[in-house]
């Protein structure tokens, strides 16, 4: 698993971001036990923003987010993911797209 994580970090390193410090555009709602849908984001998110912490809860650090919307769609029914666009001008900046 660690080799995969290394690789995704290398991939994201090539991308440009303007991080809106202190204003994450995606939040995971407070939960005791994550749903299967929420847990699946640990692997499904293409930017590897989601992880499982020691308490078995799902956390997000959206700094590498490419704003694809996958997590919002996967958790649409459970409502565990709060998803907004970053403020204008912030977030990912594709050089090639």
């Amino acid at each position, binding site marked *: 698993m660690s080799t995969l994580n290394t690789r995704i970090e290398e991939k994201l390193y*090539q991308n440009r971001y303007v991080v809106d410090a202190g204003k994450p555009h995606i939040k995971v709602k407070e939960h005791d036990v994550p749903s299967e849908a929420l847990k699946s984001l640990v692997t499904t998110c293409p930017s590897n923003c989601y992880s499982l912490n020691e308490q078995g809860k799902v956390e997000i650090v959206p700094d590498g987010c490419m704003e694809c919307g996958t997590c919002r769609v996967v958790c649409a029914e459970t409502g565990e993911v709060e998803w907004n666009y970053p403020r*204008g001008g912030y977030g990912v900046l594709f050089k090639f797209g």
Partner: protein
Amino acid sequence: MTTVQEHFDAIVVGAGPAGNAAAYTMAKAGLNVLQLERGEYPGSKNVQGAILYADALEKIIPDFREDAPLERHVIEQRVWMMDDTSHTGMHYRSEDFNEEKPNRYTIIRAQFDRWFSSKVREAGAIVLCETTVTELVKDTKGAVIGVLTDRQGGPLLADVVVLAEGVNGLIGQRAGLRDELKAGDVALAVKEMHFMPQEVVESRFNLSGDAGVVIEAMGTVTKGMTGTAFLYTNRESVSIGIGCMVGDLAKSGITPYALLDSFKQHPSIAPLIAGSEVKEYVGHLIPEGGYKAMPAIYGAGWVVAGDAAHLVNSVHREGSNLAMTSGRIAAETIVWLKRRREPCTAANLAEYRKRLEDSFVLKDMRKYQRIPALLHGNRQLLDLYPRMMSGIAQTWLRVDGKAKKAKEAEIFKTVRKQRGLAGLVADGLRFARAWR
């Protein structure tokens, strides 16, 4: 900002192919147009493979070839059915595609969208970047009359709002104009840009000048999930990507980047990108639900175009042309209403839907409306068949002292075992029914 109090003929949300086509068409016709884009520059949030279909753009900007940033015109299409070690391919390459006005080009979207947006500005529209639309403003009867943004100031008002907000169409969704996307109706695609010297691209794909090759691939590369992969040649880079239905991915436990890396390592692909330098990794959703997943595309004071309207032809891998065409037709409808001094009511904007029905856009969407469900319920089409084809080809091609008759018998036995004759016939019928 002095424009805040102004009332516009139209506000366009988004500066992708649909939004640019709409804004350009309306501005060119003399309408007072405001276009809002959340990215730092048009294209900075946009992702595509990417292939540009000349016909759709020619109908908007006939002489686009003079200054648009184009990569290569496509002279060869490869369709590959892949198993773990092989590919069975259908290639079509023709000198006829080296024509004065080529039909398809590879492009790099961030560059292309910036160019398209410069044309929108030249046509007279006001393009405001770094501005995220937060919600639609409605009057007491529920008609859309403008938008709110994350910039300071009051609402921006217009006779009509063109929602070209892309696949993640939060604005329309939150205003109740359409439902949230379903995991079974969207694919997540990830892509990398691999740079290498122009001569290397040309020698690896047997190209010269601006000619290019595109590969569409399917098979075991998507690990049993419904999806496709691709490799497109640009001038001095190669775009390589893979996409799968989000519902399949979430169930699989496979990461999108591992899937992409595995595709890159396939023996048929690896030599094509060897020694390249990766300069970007992107991810994006593709609306793949087809006609049946389409939302309402017009209402009182609003129309939707492009990915936000779920306009993607998943069989032919077309989307940007449907986006440009729907944006153009929406704009032409609005211009037509303006000239007749008719308001943008739902009843009047129904003309947009009617015109779209008469175009290839909805004709093609209708034609393939049964395909998404077919693929959803028959994943073997993408997994078993490529394996079977590969097995057949190997049995047939290996010269190993076995008599040809015995080889034929072996092939039939394998096919019977893997799918059965009844299964083959049923798959063929199902496919034919969905296709017609």
